């Protein structure tokens, strides 16, 4: 089957079986920033945004996103012009192995696109679907707070 999906602002036609899983198809299409972690809806390393909402690509059929907008980490910024969240994660030293980072950033983006006046609890709640084995989360949450302040124009 062919599915028309907008990925990072570009309309693409994905060819896949009717029961294909979004994670597999995105990675086959070259979006390697969408990580294959648990493939069962626990770790969050495959998190993408579908119409701005954090979504586990491993728990989504490709058919469910036909006609919708997907954002992967590749669509967020570049080396030369990183997204404020990407900058802030570096500033907070929130990256060790980096495997969870794309998912963390996208979940944070979903939160901050909705509101930037966020508490630590808000951040923890929005990122509760993204596991990290390295950092202990503190610096990741610091990074989100830094990004939120920047987005509020406070620093």
């Amino acid at each position, binding site marked *: *089957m062919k*599915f028309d999906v907008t990925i990072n602002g570009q309309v693409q036609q994905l060819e896949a*079986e*009717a*029961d294909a*899983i979004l994670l597999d198809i995105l990675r086959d299409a070259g979006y390697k920033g969408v990580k294959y972690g648990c493939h*069962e*809806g626990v770790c*969050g390393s495959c*998190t993408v945004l*579908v119409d701005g*909402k*954090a*979504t*586990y690509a*491993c*728990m*989504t*059929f*490709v*058919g*469910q996103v*036909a*006609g919708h907008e997907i954002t992967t980490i590749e669509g967020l910024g570049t080396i030369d012009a990183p997204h404020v969240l990407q900058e802030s994660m570096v500033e907070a030293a929130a990256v060790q192995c980096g495997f969870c980072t794309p998912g963390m950033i996208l*979940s944070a983006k*979903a939160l901050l696109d909705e509101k930037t006046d966020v508490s630590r609890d808000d951040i923890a*709640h*929005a*990122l*509760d*679907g993204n596991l990290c084995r390295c950092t202990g989360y503190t610096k990741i949450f610091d990074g989100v707070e830094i990004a939120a302040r920047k987005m509020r124009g406070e620093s």
Partner: protein
Amino acid sequence: MPAQEFVRPKELEEVLALLADPEQKAIPVAGGSALVRGSRRKAEIFVDIKDCGLNSLRQQDEQFVLGAALSCSDIVRAPLPGATGDLLHELADSVATQPLRNAITLGGNIVNMVSWADFPVALLALDANVSIARHAQQNEIWPMQRLVEEHPLKALPAGALLTHVWVPQHDAGWGANYRRFRQSEVDYSLASVATLIELKNNKINNISIAVGAVTPRPQRCTQAEKVLLGHAASANNMAQAAAAAVDEVRIVANMRMEESMRRRVLQVEIRRAIETAVQRAKASQA
């Protein structure tokens, strides 16, 4: 045979027609999370029900009518005032993790009714009803109790689709609480409790207590309700009600928690749920 087609009809009737045809071997897809990991992927046609009008919310006859395709996140944001809203908001915001709250739907959570499912517990306490639709047939209204007595996947006729949930509104004088015990913020429920209480002249005029996750399917605690009905709430009788509830439910143990621990946890959570519901009922009268 792997699935051949993935369709997303814009009209409910088209969905029902697809589900009704035994030759098509069609299966509804809402959030998809249960289906992605389950064995029912043997269907030949996946019918996505998210675009056929089942993600609506309206008020009718002093009830909220919630579409089965509403996600937990949709419900968190939904304008649901009063005790009913407290219960549903609390529940919806505590389910699983954020990406799954964006996917898990009201209808899917009810129909799949795994032992740790949260919505069936609250809807049992709320005395909710559900609309069942079938192609070329009159819609039926079933009480939540009926779906709980016989698992929905067995009770629902072939081709049937749960389309809406009808939940009574409760305003001043009513308080509710949903509580889950689990080992981490994102764990499955190991015990869950939904309580709804009405206070009139400082006495409990209506009460419902439902538990889940410790029982094979959600269960009302009618003996516990009788302990409190007609009385003013006190620390003593709320504790007695919690003890009575634990005695009347059939608790099942699994590798995650033995039975005696489940009883202790459940008793504490029931008492806390009653206390919170009473406090909220009093606050709603202020």
